[in-house]
């Protein structure tokens, strides 16, 4: 098992390095200018470029960047929040996005599971239909449309929630964005849970368990849900990353200082900010790779069969 984990971690690190290099190179060939100055002359701009080492060969630049990165230094902003260490800006953005993302994941998964289980237990009845319709709507309606609807209804028509995100009332002003972001997760999880559970209900081993006299919540927990969870975890993983890394449009609409908004600002602001695009790119990829790694390891916990198969694979 340890060897397997190490191998996976090593592969993940290599993938990350390749991604960082590609990003590093791509951002430099993107159209646009890191110094979109209208008032500095050529000498000043050349000096600024030299200060940032942009005149060096790309591999030298990359080596310098990686060395700094390994010391935890993302560099400073070049055109966005010019001169400010990216770490300070990123801290706030990550904390905002992760907290709101975290709430929506918890909400989405919990309600999604409940909906899915309810639907599966009431197959063909009203509740099943209701859940299906709900999840189709949830998958189809983009989160920002729902966000605009919530904002219009619950802070404009009925002024209860703040109209814009307010740092000093974090939990309270997170309700609407978290709710709208969780909708997609909620519906996806509900749909998958329902379908998987229905399938498992029809399987031989559940019938066997039933014939042994198992029924009710024990049957659902020990046999149906556990088996149904595997595909759900697979679906949930990328959803988690999507939610954590922020939702561009929702953050823009509600004025949340999060990483989604930061990414858009870094690319479409006055100038392209190489360091921000890179830092955020690295953050996204690291999260994706880590979550995928965790999912892989989680399979083993959820399903002993996978664990055993892996052991056999290692032995062979």
């Amino acid at each position, binding site marked *: 098992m340890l060897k397997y984990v190490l191998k996976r971690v090593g592969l993940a690190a290599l993938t990350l390095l390749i991604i960082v290099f590609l990003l590093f190179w791509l951002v430099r060939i993107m159209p646009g200018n890191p110094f979109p100055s*209208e008032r500095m002359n050529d000498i000043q701009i050349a000096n600024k470029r030299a200060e940032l080492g942009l005149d060096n060969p790309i591999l030298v630049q990359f080596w310098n960047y990686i060395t700094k990165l390994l010391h935890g230094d993302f560099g400073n902003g070049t055109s966005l929040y010019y001169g400010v260490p990216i770490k300070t800006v990123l801290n706030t953005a990550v904390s905002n996005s992760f907290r709101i993302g975290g709430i929506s994941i918890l909400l989405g998964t919990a309600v999604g599971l409940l909906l899915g289980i309810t639907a599966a237990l009431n197959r063909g009845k009203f509740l099943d239909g209701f859940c299906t319709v709900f999840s189709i709507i949830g998958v189809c309606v983009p989160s920002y449309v729902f966000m605009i609807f919530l904002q219009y209804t619950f802070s404009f028509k009925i002024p209860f929630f703040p109209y814009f*995100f307010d740092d000093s009332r974090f939990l309270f002003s997170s309700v609407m964005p978290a709710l709208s972001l969780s909708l997609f997760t909620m519906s996806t999880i509900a749909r998958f849970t329902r379908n998987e559970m229905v399938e498992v209900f029809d399987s031989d081993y559940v019938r066997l368990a039933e014939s042994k006299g198992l029924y009710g919540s024990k049957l659902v927990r020990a046999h149906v849900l556990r088996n149904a969870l595997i595909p759900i975890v697979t679906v949930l993983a990328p959803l988690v990353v999507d939610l954590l890394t922020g939702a561009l449009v929702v953050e823009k609409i509600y004025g949340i200082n999060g990483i989604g*908004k930061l990414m858009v600002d870094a690319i479409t602001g006055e100038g392209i900010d190489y360091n921000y695009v890179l830092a955020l790119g690295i953050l996204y990829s690291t999260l994706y790779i880590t979550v995928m790694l965790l999912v892989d390891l989680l399979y083993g916990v959820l399903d002993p069969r996978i664990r055993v198969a892996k052991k056999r694979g290692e032995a062979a």
Partner: protein
Amino acid sequence: MKKLLSLLLVVAVLASCAVTVAFADSDAYLGVMLTTNVMSLDTNLATDGESFEVIANCIDGLTQMDADGAAVPAIAESYDVSEDGTVYTFHLRDAKWANGADVTAYDFEFAWKRIAQEAGEYAYLLDSSVGCVKNADAIIYEGADPDTLGVEAVDAKTFVVTLEVPVSFFPSLMYFPTFYPINEEFYNSLEAGTYGTSPETFLSNGAFVLENYTPGTASLSLKRNETYWDADNVKLAGIKYQVIQNSGEALDAFNKGELNMVTVSGNQVAAAENDPKLAENLSVTGAGYMWYLSFSQTENNAQGGMLANKNLRLAISNVIDRYNLVDNYVMDGSLATFTAVPPQFAASSTTGEDFSADQDLFLDVCDYNPEAAAEYYALAKEELGQDEFTFTMIYGSNEGNEIALVAQAIKEDIEAELDGMTINLQPMTKSERLDKMQNDNYDIALTRWGPDYADPMTYLGMWITDNSNNYGFWSNAEYDQLIADCTTGAYVSDYDARWAAMLEAETIVMQEAVIAPLYTKANANLISSDVEGVQFHPVALNRVYKAASIG
């Protein structure tokens, strides 16, 4: 089981809606909308109007703007000018930084030398094209020792500035944030790169102190500075800023009372005009900057330099219906403009007359006049020996919602009146547009320029040979000479002669159609009826809140 599940479902949905935290509304604060993020609170790094507005709320310079935009004393209680107009001696009043330290001449000396040494975006305000501070060019462009800059703190209360040549508008430059002081001791106590990134790392000596700010935030707040030297005249308890990029959302926030001052554009302006309740809150103020068409005149572009032909440029300039642009597309009270220097920001200090008050001055060369355009076009076709032209027009798709519409309208005007000319539109980000223009890789660009100081030279200085803002690479010896005479030569001490020479220079730009002016941007503001005393200016600081009150 089913009942339990249903119950849990209901509880979960209810719980998600019922998270409540105590309300803490700040009624006494003025709620103001910003259209973009505050990028930096460091005077050396800030480049945008939003940042300058917030800095100016918190820091006082030597002078400040009065309601009409004239320079009146701030930290400098008074100043003397030497007879030849090159030495300014500022006498500082007793004022405190928010941490209790005195505001001294040394703070100004430190800040100015830092601006010159760092050579950032606005360092040029010190150089020989604008402020003409002694030795600034050598420091900014050649890396000379910043201690050689012509500024000296004679003692804590006396700040002396030596200029290369007299600069008639020098006192009005002093209210621009680039010339604000920074407390050296405080600055040096901070970790490098963190100055101005939080309330703790930013020091005020002005009307407000920073209460709540992180870089990238969509909302920030300032509160009244009780130790401000002029605190008796500050009525607001504070200002709460909210970044909103969507005009519809701005209108909703205003209607809801969330914000007291918002800027609307496009259809929302019409909506506000037609709503009897909102109409009385609507006011249009000049934003200062002018949109214009820049033509590349080099051989690299426009089918081998076709736009170097004066008549072709004049033909294009004379088919654009500028009133149609502002009335039907921009719709926020922006002014159709027919002069290379836009109106409303530069008034003569001897006659008080606006440099560009007379918009009819160049109508013979710049107007919506298809017949004249046809004549120019015929001449151009003959001179170039060509009947068909295809040009690309670039514009920034992130420079306001109306820009794409304006670009489309210009294309339609040109193609309708100038037979055989095709305009291809190419949207891109502003940064890409600037990149193309600076690298001489465009035919026609829809671009803008805002005045940094209240003198026509902020525009006219752009079109001298080799200026980095001379994107068309146009060059005219007579023009260069006129501008040199106005900035460092014959006219520097003769105010009226300088004014006349600048008009002469502008005439050359217009007759040659170096650019095609389009419109001078305005802001359509909605301001709650209980707000008074906010001062609007088209130049330097767009909004000043020192005299503002609410309720």
